[in-house]
């Protein structure tokens, strides 16, 4: 039995200790916004936050997630109105959309570390794979969100 805090809510799950966090989030807790892509932490579709840091949940054992604040795409903002989500809509980033919740979670972790990221910092952070080729829009939207968040802070 594992006690987890997901999106601010305490949950307990009875699962084997080596089951990936992704499957707990999706199958046990019903939070299906986080996607399965490659299963080997390569594509980033499964990205969630542990204490604000991005982790690839398909390769992350649930036993290592206890005692941490887990945030999924459903918990990124109360009304899907995070500056990144607004910028995503403004720039029409999603195409098929499958990778985009992972993209958003990676981008949120990036902005937490670098509120005004450089192109190089974006390139290093955003290794998520998108088969629709949305990366130029992703980059533009991250810059837009950074600008909006900066303006909001001011």
């Amino acid at each position, binding site marked *: 039995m594992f006690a987890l805090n997901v999106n601010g809510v305490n949950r307990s799950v009875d699962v084997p200790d080596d089951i990936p966090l992704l499957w707990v989030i999706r199958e046990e807790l019903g939070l299906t916004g986080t996607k399965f892509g490659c299963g080997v932490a*390569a594509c980033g579709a499964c990205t969630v936050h542990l204490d604000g840091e*991005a982790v690839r949940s398909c390769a992350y054992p649930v036993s*290592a997630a206890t005692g941490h604040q887990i945030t999924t795409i459903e918990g990124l903002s109360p009304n899907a109105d995070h500056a990144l989500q607004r910028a995503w809509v403004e720039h029409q980033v999603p195409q098929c959309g499958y990778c985009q919740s992972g993209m958003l979670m990676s981008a949120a972790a990036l902005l937490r570390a670098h509120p005004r*990221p450089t192109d190089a*910092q974006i390139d290093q952070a*955003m290794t998520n794979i998108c088969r629709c080729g949305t990366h130029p829009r992703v980059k533009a939207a991250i810059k837009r969100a950074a600008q909006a968040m900066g303006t909001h802070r001011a």
Partner: protein
Amino acid sequence: MREATRWLRALLLVGTWTCTGLASAGNAKAAGSAAFDPIYRVLTHPRCLNCHTSTGFPRQGDERRPHDYRVARGTDDHGAAAMRCTACHGTSNNGLFPGAPRWSLAPLSMAWENLGPGQLCQRLKDRRQNGQRSVTQLVEHMSNDPLVSWAWAPGAQRQPIDMPKDDFVRALQAWAVEGAPCP
């Protein structure tokens, strides 16, 4: 004739002193080489060297390729934002993914790539570059640190260090007892 004899004696003396000095330096180098060679063999194994790189990224595999997924060193040697080492690596091996406490790259001051035995030995002992560790602390670190010990149990299909851990520790201790000589 006496003058010539004096010169000859002087030359012999200088020659003997020089040879003795060279022989002594040579012996020290040989002793350093004998004591440090097994340590060098371990420290330049891919399990160690892949994260003791001089590059802006870790390496992986026995062929020492750049880490998959464009993983970068980052400013604190723990990866870039949103691509921290801990995004995939935990405190123990997990299936495909190796893990140990404090999984990260070694700082650039501890990069060992492309160093010969003498250079690596000197860098290892240089307290300005080795995290202010004395030889005793180096031996302790390399004997007991879980991240170092991981290299003998790397999990999955990874090749462990090809020298038993106990032999490595004995080699470290012998090297320290000899005064940590460098080749």
